[in-house]
């Protein structure tokens, strides 16, 4: 067991957690305005693919990330249009956008790069690793916290920023009000659907960043369906974190840690299935304790009008 928990385990947990965390924050924002976004998986996939496309076409990593954010923004606009404007069932829109993303990215992989399965190019550079000056010299902690891509640090800032935005600013309160009780919010003159659009677009940007970290962070390549269920894990992290940025961060850390632990256990030829299962079991147990949350009711409403 000695080799099981070491520094590199925690460092890898921090890396695996970032895409999940960014997408989960997007999901949380959507949940706060009453839209239960099942389409995180698809949005993330679009982000991962367009980040590679941007990188390949321009060779500039910053432009690549911005391009991914732009494309995911447009994709999330489709989600917003279908669910806010056309009032289609949010869950069905999310499911179909996941399908569309998988189809579109695999198709474009073939149409743009003329390859099947995965695209990799040696000339492409991934996100640079940052060594944080002071922290990197702290024993143990330095090895865990330093030497990650910029997006890892950005995600931590986003968590704090969102927490402040939601609970300390006027716009944040309006956003919460729009989700909590749309009718009351409307009667106060808050433009609910505009706020919902804003939340969906913000979610798109965050998912774009999540995808960019996935395809440019650890490896610099794109493979078909490379999100591999991370969007749904992010969705679960959103629920476990009660759509509270700090809570979501904690939940994502749990998921990331369990994923890294499972990879580690594989190295020891131990069964990984139960460690992989833990986050889902924890979430179900957590659901037992935290019920009557507004976004849950929203999901329930969407659920019941689904015939």
């Amino acid at each position, binding site marked *: 067991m000695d080799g099981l928990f070491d520094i590199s385990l925690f460092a890898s947990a921090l890396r695996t957690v970032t895409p999940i965390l960014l997408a989960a924050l997007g999901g949380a924002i959507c949940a706060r305005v009453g839209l239960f976004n099942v389409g995180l998986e698809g949005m993330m996939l679009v982000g991962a693919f367009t980040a590679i496309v941007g990188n390949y076409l321009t060779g500039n990593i910053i432009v690549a990330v911005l391009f991914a954010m732009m494309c995911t923004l447009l994709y999330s606009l489709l989600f917003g249009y279908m669910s806010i404007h056309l009032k289609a*069932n949010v869950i069905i829109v999310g499911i*179909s956008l996941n399908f569309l993303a998988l*189809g579109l990215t695999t198709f474009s992989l*073939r149409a743009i790069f003329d390859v099947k399965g995965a695209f990799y190019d040696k000339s492409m550079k991934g996100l640079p690793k940052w060594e944080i000056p002071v922290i990197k010299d702290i024993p143990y902690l330095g090895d865990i916290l330093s030497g990650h891509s910029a997006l890892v640090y950005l995600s931590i800032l986003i968590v704090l920023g969102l927490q402040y935005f939601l609970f300390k600013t006027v716009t944040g309160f309006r956003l919460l009000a729009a989700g909590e009780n749309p009718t009351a919010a409307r009667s106060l003159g808050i433009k609910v659907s505009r706020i919902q659009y804003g939340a969906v677009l913000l979610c798109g940007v965050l998912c774009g960043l999540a995808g960019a970290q996935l395809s440019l962070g650890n490896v610099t390549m794109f493979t078909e369906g490379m999100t591999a269920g991370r969007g749904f894990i992010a*969705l679960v992290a959103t629920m476990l974190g009660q759509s509270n940025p700090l809570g979501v961060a904690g939940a994502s850390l749990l998921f990331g840690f369990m994923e890294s632990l499972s990879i580690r256990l594989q190295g020891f030829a131990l069964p990984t299935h139960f460690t992989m299962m833990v986050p889902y079991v924890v979430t179900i147990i957590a659901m037992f304790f935290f019920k009557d949350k507004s976004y849950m009711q929203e999901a*329930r409403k969407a*659920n019941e009008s689904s015939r």
Partner: protein
Amino acid sequence: MDKVTTALRSLVQPLLAVIVGLAVGAIAIVIVGGSITETYAEMWRGAFGSFYFLTNTLTRATPIILIGLGVALAFRAGFFNMGSEGQMVLGALSAALTAIYMPGPGVVKMIAAIFAGVIAGGLWSAFAGWLDAKFRMNLLITTLLLNYIATYFAAYMVTYPFKDKTGSAAMSQTVMLGREAWLPKLFQGMTLHTGFLIAAVVTVLMFLFMKHTVKGYEIRMLGGNPLFASYGGIQRGKLMLASMFVSGGLAGLAGSIEVLGTQYRFIDGALTSPGYAWSGIMATLLAGSHPIGTAVAAILIAALQTGGMGMERNTDVPLEVSSIIQAVLILFVSAKLTYSFIKRKKAGAKNGRAL
């Protein structure tokens, strides 16, 4: 006469959706520089072109039909059962293990395996229903979570305790079932097996059940208007458990039939990677939860998938055109839900309701 017009009207939306889907697919084909007519012709040939391809499509449609029917039943009762995947996997695992370890002649093994699959899938699904009925834990989310738990559990079972150690391959799978427990093929040399007949019978039974029985009416009433249903003396909890059991049981049946008819063993990932569960949900959405419509939509979706494979074999157009078509179909159909929603909203306004 009225019946005919309503039947025709209910066909307009899906047909329109298919046309829009094919149009978007055509755009994608043009982008990669293929010829639209030639590509769609290849797609048609891959799905229905010969007797072999037709039976192939129907084989693929079999689990999709059963899962779609299960999801449709839950939808009709007003529940979003997203857990078909886990229910199917557990059903398949139970069926495989029963068929391997059950003594007796082949028919007994086969029937016991199918029952085990139905019960395993049903109980797993009813568990989510119980959590909702008893503790008000949202069904949509729990079924989604239970999928992961079920697939990891099944993967563990075939990677460790029940792993096939006879072969040289290091695959996570059970040993092969005895040949006597296999579902017989319908035609010599074709993939189509008796499971398809089972799916067809279940479709008809489901149609009759929903339309002509008291329980079927109660389910539709619960889904249509829960308040009215409780006013009519229907116990939501009980009916929920029952309909979730049947819904999951059908997914379990799909898994068992796939094991007994096609794969002859439980292979980790062999049921999840073709996306049968999601295809089943799509079929249900496409058909608006109508049982026979769901079966037809399932065959259509299976045809898009097998046709896509045929297209990829014979042209330069990638397989994914068909997944784009599928996604557009569903997006378009969810706009149909919108249409009925607006109608309902207008009706509500007329009756003076605030919402």
